[in-house]
C-alpha cells in the first residue's frame, strides 16, 4: 500500500510538528530568520544558528474552508468540455442524427421497411434512437476512449499529474473524480445525440405519440421516459468501457496509446461477438449487450435483457476500476 493514497484530514493539516520547548523559549531572544533578503552566506549561516520555526499558522486553511467536494469534479468537467478536440467530437456525435434525418427526409424510405430510420419518417422521436444504434458501435466508444486517454495518461504525459499529487490530491480521489467525469462525459455524449436527434427529427418529421414495435401507442410523457431509459442504459455501457479506459490510462504515459488500446478492446469484443463458435463467450462481452437499449421500443418494456447487460457492465466497471486503483496507488510517478 502506498502512503500516498489517503487524503489529508483537517486535523493533519493543522497539526504542528512537535516543538521542542527550549527552542520555543530561545526563539524570542536568539536571532530569528533575518529579514534582509540580500545576505551573504556567512550572515545567513550565523543568523540561522538557532533556526526559527515557521511562524505562520495554517489555521486559515482547511478548518475554516467551506468544503466544496465538487470543486475538483467541476474543474475536471470544465477541462473536458473546454477542450477544442472534445467540442469537435461532440459536433461529430451530434451530426450523425442530423445527417440521418435529412437523408431520410430527402431520399425517403429505403423500401425495406422495418429499419428504425424508415419508421422514423412517421415520427421524429425515433431519430435519436436510430442514431444511438449507429453510434454506440463505434463513435461513442471512441469518444470515451479519447477522454480516458486524457484522464491519467494525458496528465502524466503533460507532467500535470505530479503537480496534482503534490497539491496534494489523494490518488484514490483522483481516480474517483476522473472516473466520474468520464461517466458524465458519456452522459453528455449520449444526451447530445438524443437532443440533436429530437430537434432534427422534430423539425423534419414532427414529434408524435410513439408506436412501439409491439404495435401499441405511447403518449409523449411515456415516450420521453423510454428515451431516458435508453440514455441511462447506454451511459452505463459506456461507463464500463470508461473503467477499462481508466485502467489502460494508468498503464501508459501516452494518451494516444491508451485511446488506441481501448478501441482495440472494443473492436476485438465486437469481432469475438460475431464468431458463432464462441457463442458461449458472447454473454460476457460488453459489446453483446449494447443493442439491448432498443428494447425501449417494445411494450410492455422488457427489462431482462437490459438487466443482464447492466450486470455485465457493473462487473467490468468494478473489476477494471479496482485494477486501475491497484495500479495507480502504487505507481511511481516519474515524469
Amino acid at each position, binding site marked *: 500500500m502506498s502512503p500516498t493514497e489517503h487524503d489529508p484530514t483537517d486535523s*493533519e493539516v493543522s497539526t504542528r510538528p512537535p516543538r521542542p520547548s527550549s527552542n520555543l523559549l530561545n526563539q524570542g531572544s536568539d536571532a530569528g530568520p533575518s529579514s534582509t533578503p540580500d545576505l551573504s552566506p556567512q550572515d545567513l549561516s550565523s543568523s540561522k544558528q538557532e533556526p526559527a520555526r515557521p511562524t505562520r499558522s495554517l489555521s486559515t486553511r482547511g478548518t475554516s474552508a467551506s468544503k466544496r467536494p465538487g470543486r475538483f469534479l467541476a474543474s475536471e468537467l470544465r*477541462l473536458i468540455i473546454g477542450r477544442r478536440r472534445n467540442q469537435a467530437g461532440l459536433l461529430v456525435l451530434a451530426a450523425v442524427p442530423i445527417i440521418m434525418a435529412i437523408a431520410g427526409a430527402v431520399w425517403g424510405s429505403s423500401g425495406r421497411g422495418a429499419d428504425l430510420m424508415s419508421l422514423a419518417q412517421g415520427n421524429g422521436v425515433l431519430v435519436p434512437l436510430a442514431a444511438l444504434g449507429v453510434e454506440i458501435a463505434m463513435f461513442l466508444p471512441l469518444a470515451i476512449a479519447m477522454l480516458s486517454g486524457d484522464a491519467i495518461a494525458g496528465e502524466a504525459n503533460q507532467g500535470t499529474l505530479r503537480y496534482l499529487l503534490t497539491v496534494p490530491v*489523494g490518488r484514490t480521489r483522483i481516480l474517483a473524480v476522473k472516473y466520474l467525469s468520464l461517466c458524465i462525459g458519456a452522459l453528455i455524449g449520449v444526451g447530445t445525440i438524443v437532443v440533436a436527434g429530437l430537434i432534427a427529427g422534430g423539425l423534419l418529421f414532427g414529434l408524435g405519440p410513439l408506436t412501439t414495435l409491439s404495435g401499441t401507442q405511447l403518449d409523449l410523457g411515456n415516450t420521453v421516459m423510454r428515451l431516458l431509459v435508453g440514455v441511462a442504459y447506454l451511459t452505463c455501457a459506456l461507463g464500463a468501457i470508461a473503467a477499462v479506459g481508466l485502467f489502460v490510462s494508468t498503464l501508459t504515459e501516452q494518451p494516444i496509446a491508451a485511446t488506441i488500446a481501448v478501441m482495440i478492446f472494443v473492436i476485438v469484443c465486437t469481432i469475438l461477438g460475431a464468431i458463432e463458435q464462441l457463442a458461449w463467450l458472447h454473454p460476457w462481452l460488453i459489446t453483446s449487450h449494447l443493442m439491448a437499449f432498443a428494447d425501449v421500443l417494445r411494450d410492455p418494456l422488457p427489462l431482462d435483457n437490459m438487466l443482464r447487460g447492466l450486470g455485465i457492465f457493473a462487473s467490468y466497471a468494478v473489476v477494471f476500476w479496482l485494477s486501475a486503483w491497484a495500479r495507480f496507488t502504487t505507481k511511481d510517478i516519474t515524469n
Partner: protein
Amino acid sequence: MSEQPALAVATHGLTKTFGAQVVVDNLDLVVPYGAVYGFLGPNGSGKTTTIRMILGLIEPTAGDRELLGHDRPIAALPRIGALVEGPAFHPYLSGRANLVRLDAVDATADPRTTRRRVDAALDRVGLMAAAAKTYRQYSLGMRQRLAIAAALLAPRDLLVLDEPTNGLDPQGTREVRNLIASLAADGATVVVSSHLLSEIEQICSHLGVISAGTMVAQGSVEEIRARQQTTAVVHTADPEQAARVLSEQGLTQIESGRDTARGVADDDHPPEQLVAALVAAGVGVRGFALERPSLEDLFVELTGEGFDVAH
C-alpha cells in the same frame, strides 16, 4: 526530544534503484527548520529522484523520510509548495486558469479566497500582466515563474524547489533568488536544488552536495567552509626563515617558494599571532594572506568536473 533540533526534512538511508541502477544511494538528508538548503549535484546525480521520493511521487526502494514531523508525505504536503523537474500545466488554459485549477483540486483550500490568493501568487512572481495568456504562449522563464506561483498558492512551511532557476535569464535568476530569500525571511524552510552552485550559493544557509546518488558533503555553509583547509601565505624575501617560523607555530604542509612561504593553518592559528611570530623572528613580511578555496572549488572537487553526466 528537545535535545535534537527538529528537522523540516529528514531522510534515513533513502535509496532508489531503477532496474540495476542505484540512482539514490543511502541518502541521509538533514534540513533544519528555517534553513535555506541548497541541494547541489551535477545533472543526473539523483536530485530530482530524491525530491520525488520526499514528496511521495515515487516510493523509495529502501529507507524512510520525515517531512514536517510526518512520515507519510501526503500528511505534510498541504503545507509544502513544490516545483519538481520543471513546470507543467495545461497548455490551453491561461496562467490564471491553471492556478485556479490547482486550487480547485485542493480539498483544504477555501474557494472564497481563491481569487485573492491566485492574484497574490501571480503578483509575487511578476506574472500579473501575462495572467490571461494561455500557458502555451509563455516563454520558459514565464513557465518557471508560474510553477513557482503555484507553489505559493497557499501559506507554506516548506518549499521544495527543484532547479527553479533553470531556463531563467540572469535577471530572472536574481529575482528567484530574492524571492527565495524573502520566503525564508517569512519563516519558510526552503530546499532548493541546482546543478550550479553559483546560482544559489548566496542565499543558502545549508548545503547538501550529492554525486552519483551519494551525499558527499552536508551541513551549514559555515561548517562546510570550516572543513576546508586554510593556507597561510607569507610574501617575503626570506622564505626559508618564514617557513621555519610557520613550522614552529605548528602549521602543516609547509612549502617555500622563491619569495613566498605557505602552510596549512587551522583555527588555533589566528593570523595576527602568525604575523607577530614572523616579525619577532626577524622575517621581513611583505605580505600575508589566508587563502581558502572557494565553495565552487570544493563543489568541483567533490563532484568532478566536465560535461559528462553522472551515469
